């Protein structure tokens, strides 16, 4: 569809350039011009020349971007596939081929299994938390309250702040002696856990930070979605005697489902790549309790200098992300058919 339109636009382009021809005619509407285009076969040679130069211009315009993609995205991806099949410490001159040994190692490794589990827990907690809270806040800010635009801006602000800097603030907050969290828990007489030094609470802590930082994105997207729901749907539901809860369940939620799905997929993909929070707050610890796939890749590559294992782990991550994306594509197609 898109392509057809652009082709047509392109085809009309060079002909319009014939100034004298069109300047005479008073009609500048698009169909008229296309009519002119078809009725001037004598301009072939000029036409092909212009097309030729457009091809050149296209190439020049697209080249820098594609070149950079080639060098820094596509080639490294292939190279990473190769690295996953060798054993290499990033220093030695030779890279002995080991076949699938790196993958086999990962699948049999207890730590890697823990890493997969952590990634799952972190993703479910962070995505679930930010979507649920984001929806809640969006529903609230969709009410006619004074100052809600300002509140929206405040809720969104953390998504833009440096993850590294935010993490440092939260390490201070989670400090079991001087931290804000310990002080607040003190108000209700609960002894603060040691948070980042505890194998269970450290995961809870990074999920809290992630949700705090990212719930504004879900809020803003949900708010935009809420505003597209036609009012008469609610009116009709009201006439049918639906209470607020039933209206939420039967009107709001279904109408938001495409947006929820979009948020679900994009949040899963960004959560998989959440590096700075984990790197700064826990460095994957204590004893790998918060070690997720992305951190594991970094650790294997740049701390343990095991390029093969790092590359293999990054491919595992890539395949999971690809699967998520493909599911989204399939769903979107179906949505087009039925929606």
């Amino acid at each position: 569809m898109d392509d057809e339109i652009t082709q047509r636009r392109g085809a009309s382009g060079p002909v319009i350039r014939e100034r004298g021809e069109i300047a005479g005619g008073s009609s500048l509407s698009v169909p008229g011009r296309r009519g002119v285009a078809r009725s001037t076969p004598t301009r072939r040679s000029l036409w092909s020349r212009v097309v030729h130069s457009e091809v050149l211009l296209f190439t020049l315009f697209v080249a820098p971007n594609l070149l950079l993609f080639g060098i820094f995205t596509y080639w490294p991806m292939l190279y990473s596939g190769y690295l996953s099949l060798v054993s290499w410490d990033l220093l030695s001159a030779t890279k002995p081929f080991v076949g699938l040994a790196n993958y086999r190692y990962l699948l049999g490794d207890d730590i890697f299994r823990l890493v997969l589990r952590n990634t799952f827990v972190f993703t479910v907690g962070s995505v679930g938390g930010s979507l649920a809270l984001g929806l809640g806040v969006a529903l609230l800010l969709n009410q006619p309250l004074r100052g809600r635009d300002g509140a929206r801006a405040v809720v969104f602000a953390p998504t833009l702040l440096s993850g590294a800097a935010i993490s440092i603030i939260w390490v201070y907050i989670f400090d079991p002696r001087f931290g804000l969290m310990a002080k607040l828990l003190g108000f209700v007489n609960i002894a603060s856990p040691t948070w980042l030094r505890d194998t269970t609470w450290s995961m809870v802590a990074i999920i809290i930070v992630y949700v705090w930082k990212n719930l504004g994105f879900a809020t803003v997207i949900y708010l935009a979605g809420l505003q597209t729901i036609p009012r008469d749907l609610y009116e009709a539901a009201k006439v049918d005697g639906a209470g607020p809860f039933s209206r939420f369940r039967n009107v709001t939620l279904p109408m938001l489902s495409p947006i929820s799905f979009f948020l679900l997929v994009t949040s899963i993909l960004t959560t998989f790549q959440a590096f700075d929070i984990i790197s700064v707050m826990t460095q994957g610890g204590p004893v790998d309790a918060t070690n997720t796939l992305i951190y594991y890749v970094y650790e294997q590559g740049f701390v343990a200098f095991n390029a093969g294992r790092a590359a293999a782990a990054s491919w595992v991550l890539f395949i999971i992300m690809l699967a998520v994306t493909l599911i989204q594509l399939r769903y979107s197609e179906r949505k087009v058919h039925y929606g």
Partner: protein
Amino acid sequence: MDSRALQFRITRLAGYGAMILILLVIGAPLFWMVTGAFKTNQEIRALPTVWWPELLQWTSLADLRASYVNFTEAWAAAPFGRFYLNSTIITLAGMTLEVVNATLTAYALAFLRFPKKNLVFILVLAALMVPNQVTILPNYVFLGRTMVDLFGQNWINTYQGIILPGASVAYGTFLLRQAFMGLPREVLDAAKVDGCGHLRLLWDMVIPMARPVLITFGLISMVAKWNDYLWPLVVTTNDNDRPLTVGLTYLFNQEGNTDWGVVMAATCFVIAPLLLIYLWAQRFIIEGMTAGATKG
């Protein structure tokens, strides 16, 4: 009637209550950071808790020099002047390259004829699927070793090494292409009738007309470059070549847990510029984000 009005007022009140609670939750960490940056070590350790540091109280505000002692100490603890310079260069250059790349590619895809144009578009979009962590190690090897084999010098600790791997754009290209294709055809066609070539068309018509989208994308790109962490962390080894985000975490690893006041002051250095830009361009950023998401 009366009970209805009462119920209305109660829900209204509950709404404001919930809104205030949310603002407190979002604002508390920033409050903790700012007050922490003005606390002395005794105040940080004090029990009962010091909520408002003495340096921020009216009596001591008269003595301004004393109030920012943590900031001067933080500034001296690491080369923050260099960090600012590095971050600024990386951000501005990276953003410019991204905007230029996205604009040119989007214009070509929207307005220029090319055989198998869709294939080019797919090639750009497919890059979205390649996650950072797959490319990070090979890129490091490329800049650190392959560059030496090819040109006799590596790109570790260089601006181009930090900037170039992130200078290609997929999402922005997509965003701008959509925007360009939504521009009014009549105006563009009229310009062509007047003998306007593609370069003039791009510069005089398309860019001015698509300005809001360009600004939005520029801002989003700027924020991303300023906050970028993993790649600069990997590709810099000299203290002087680091951007703010990485430099801050190195300072934190040295001083964290022992001197929170200084660390919080340094954190303010990183966060303050972005907060200021956000205050100024808040509407642009939020609307750009939602436009990209809800249309998709």
